């Protein structure tokens, strides 16, 4: 049954490429997948109907099999994927004559992301992610805005490099454990030296994919250039693949290896939170700001991973839920922000913060929804991101021993909390510049959101609120 989640978008994409009507087909597939994803998440008692496994190769005996299965973490990522996919397919407007490419590629990206999150075989885990990357590159290169070729080429080279490093790490991991079956890997013991090497490769490989400092500079130009659904899917869903991979493979399987790299990891994540945070403040355009802010927020999730790694044998039962929750919350909120930014650009023709102003008068609904999601992304209580961020900060003090003094994770945490201030500065400033003050020529007659535009935004808002008020909705899945 899980296979259907991957097949529906792929079949729909094929149907679109061979001539069926692009928009309705894509949206139907998105809706079907949303229903199926929700069913998969909340009917876990029927695990045996959902799981799926077919062997694909006899020799070499590396257990290659197309096997799909879910646990708490992958279920949450699956939910994130189907929700954001549905929202992405509803928002955005395909350029004239390019509908096929636009919707077909979006579906392929979604299929790849879902496949990566529900595969329990290392090869398909990796391969589905690659499947999602290629349409991403093509979409940016063909349908992007501004300097699309440069942005597309940059993201291609960066992520290509990251994928190769990652592949090396995964291959080494497979060789060390002797299997590709991710559920069986924990049975093998890996030498500390090998652990250290694999962990380094995985941190760099996954790190490039998640835009870990200093490998982050592909993200902002790519997001600024990409068409709305591509940005929503990549920033919201696909990028989380790297974090998911670290949580799924690196942390449980390579405890000693990861621990050896704890301090460098902390330094890099501070680069994300503080350095990229300042860059974000300095942005002149809304898309550049959102792109950089999404890079910045990755730092918090890395902080949770660092806390998990620092526990080193002791139990830190808070850090993993914190990371997963924040991944989910960030995915929903950044997708919504990019979706709304696209609306702003379509109704006013610009995203330059200095050319906008007073939009709240002509487009109050847009202003309201943008306000909510903006607050969510800076971590206002009651919204999902707050729950995640607070849990991250608390979890990094979980095993704190006052006698031993502050460890690297605690110091990192204290510095990172300043990131909250940084986010507040740039987000509130952007909100003021765009929506408040006197209306200017671009915003005087700007159109507000139509009913069709509001559906995806409201859907995402409801999710943000529901998870923010009652995080256990998701966290209970982890148990």
């Amino acid at each position: 049954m899980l296979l259907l989640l991957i097949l529906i978008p792929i079949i729909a994409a094929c149907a679109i490429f061979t001539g069926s009507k692009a928009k309705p087909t894509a949206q139907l597939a998105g809706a079907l997948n949303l229903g199926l994803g929700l069913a998969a998440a909340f009917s876990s008692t029927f695990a045996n109907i959902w799981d799926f496994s077919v062997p694909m190769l006899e020799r070499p005996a590396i257990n290659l099999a197309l096997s799909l299965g879910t646990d708490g973490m992958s279920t949450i990522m699956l939910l994130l994927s189907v929700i954001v996919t549905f929202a992405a397919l509803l928002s955005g407007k395909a350029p004239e004559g390019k509908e096929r490419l636009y919707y077909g590629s979006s579906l392929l990206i979604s299929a790849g992301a879902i496949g990566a999150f529900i595969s329990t075989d290392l090869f398909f885990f990796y391969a589905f992610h690659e499947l999602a990357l290629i349409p991403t590159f093509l979409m940016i290169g063909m349908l992007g805005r501004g300097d699309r070729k440069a942005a597309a080429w940059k993201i291609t080279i960066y992520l290509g490099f990251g994928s190769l490093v990652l592949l090396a790490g995964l291959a080494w991991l497979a060789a060390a454990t002797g299997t590709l079956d991710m559920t069986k890997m924990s049975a093998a013991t890996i030498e500390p030296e090998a652990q250290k090497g694999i962990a380094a490769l995985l941190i760099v490989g996954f790190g490039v994919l998640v835009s870990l400092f200093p490998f982050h500079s592909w993200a902002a130009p790519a997001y600024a250039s990409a068409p709305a659904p591509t940005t929503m899917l990549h920033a919201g869903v696909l990028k989380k693949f790297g974090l998911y991979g670290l949580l799924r493979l690196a942390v449980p399987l390579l405890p000693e290896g990861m621990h050896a790299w704890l301090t460098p990891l902390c330094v890099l994540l501070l680069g994300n939170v503080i350095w990229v945070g300042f860059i974000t403040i300095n942005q002149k355009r809304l898309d550049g700001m959102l792109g950089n802010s999404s890079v910045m927020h990755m730092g918090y999730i890395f902080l949770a991973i660092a806390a998990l790694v620092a526990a080193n044998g002791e139990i830190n039962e808070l850090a993993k839920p914190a990371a997963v929750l924040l991944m989910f919350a960030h995915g929903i909120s950044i997708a919504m922000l990019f979706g709304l930014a696209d609306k702003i650009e379509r109704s006013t023709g610009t995203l330059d913060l200095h050319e906008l102003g007073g939009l709240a008068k002509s487009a109050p609904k847009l202003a309201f929804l943008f306000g909510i999601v903006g607050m969510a992304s800076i971590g206002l209580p009651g919204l999902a991101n707050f729950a995640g961020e607070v849990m991250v900060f608390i979890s990094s003090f979980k095993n704190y021993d006052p006698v031993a003094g502050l460890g690297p994770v605690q110091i990192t945490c204290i510095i990172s909390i300043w990131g909250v201030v940084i986010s507040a500065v740039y987000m509130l400033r952007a909100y003021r510049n765009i929506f408040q003050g006197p209306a200017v020529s671009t915003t005087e007659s700007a159109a507000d959101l139509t009913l069709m535009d509001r559906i995806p935004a409201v859907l995402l808002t409801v999710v943000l609120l529901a998870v923010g008020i009652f995080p256990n909705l998701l966290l209970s899945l982890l148990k």
Partner: protein
Amino acid sequence: MPAYILEVCTVILGIVLLMLEAFGPSHSKKAIGLSAAAGLAFILVLLFFVKGPTEESANAPIWENFYAFDNLARFYKGFALVCTALVILMSIDFRSVISRFTDHPESESGTGEFYALPVFACAGMMWMASAKDLAGAFVALELVTISFYILVAYMRRNVGSLEAGVKYLILGALSTGFLVYGIAWIYGATGTMNLAEIAVKVQTIENTTPLLFGIGLILVALGFKIGSVPMQVWIPDVYQGAPTPTTAFLSVGSKAAGFILLIRFLDPLMQPGSPVASAVVVMLLVMAGATVIFGNFAAIAQTNFKRLLAYSSIAHAGFLILALAAWTEGDKEELGSVGAVSFYLATYLLMTLASFFVLAQVRVQNDSDMINAFDGLGKRSPMLAVGMTIIMAALAGIPLTAGFWGKFFVFLLAAKAGLWWGVILAAVGATAGFYYYFKLIRAMWWNEPATDSGPLVLPKISSYCVGILTAAIVVLGVWPQPILWLLGAN
């Protein structure tokens, strides 16, 4: 039915085709091409029903000393047949260019032999797969090489083709010299040319220097066939100048034949206890590293797609030699070096021939081999562009395409054998590959089409072949097992 019937049939097929060409109608030679492909397909069917001479016996006919038949031989014979048949089909759609540069530009009277010669080369490749003796292997190799001398220079009114022919001839002759000289040294060191006996003799040899010298010479000579350092310099020019189907045949058929011969030759030297094994591994590793780096880095700057494929073919040879350097015997659990090389070559056949099918048509329709002839193909012919994207992704080794598995098995073997330098160089090379194959994808999707370029429509035969090859690339990318079935147990 003994297996050497296959070679006999192939040679007879070639002669019949020549007769047809001499006494058949002179205005259209398409029928010769079609019958060549059909004949090869028939021999391919026969391949599954023959049984080889298996056990040595005292009263066996003398030619059985030169002819082995096992699963590996069956695989490579099938490989040669499939490759040749596809190349001939490609030639049929390419015949307008061939006739332009041969006898009379308006008639096809000069194109007939172009379908018959690959059949003879095919017979040579099939025999190479069964090599059991260095002398026999040498004869088979020359049969292939001489057929190629003609095929490369076939477009005799085209300067590029003639230049390619001369270059190929000179370096081919040089490598033949190396080969014979090397065989002589090995005969001198071991007293035999039979590969099975060499395996025994090597175990007890005391002074390994003459033997190693001979091995080095043979590796250089075979490096010419497979396109590896130090005999790689001819490849770009010859590939660029030769008629496109010949280039495809050179880069797939000839290379695979070189590899099966290399495998047959290395097998006795790499047996456990062989005193030369470690030195041979070093030689192969140096070859592999230099080839991977040279091929991949030289490819980056190319603007001509045919030259790009030439350098890419060098690069692929590097990966394949790396698998041989990490020599491992296959068993129930492991693929082994031979299995990995065979697997890689099978996927390489699919990807490379598919791209040459398209390139041949670009040459026919746009009279160009340049990458910019593909500009905006995504808008001109979207389906073909999707296919080409898959093919290029496979050549780069992206997962979910067959090309990934080939590279993956090589890396796995090299890592298990602890050849870390090889792994690192190959990884660097593969990264570079990512870049230059994407140049084509970029041209197809991101660049605007030239104003005067229309859609690129493949003729029927080519479009079926490209479709089937591309589908096979995707299916094998998800489910690689079928190639292992073809390889059989070894």
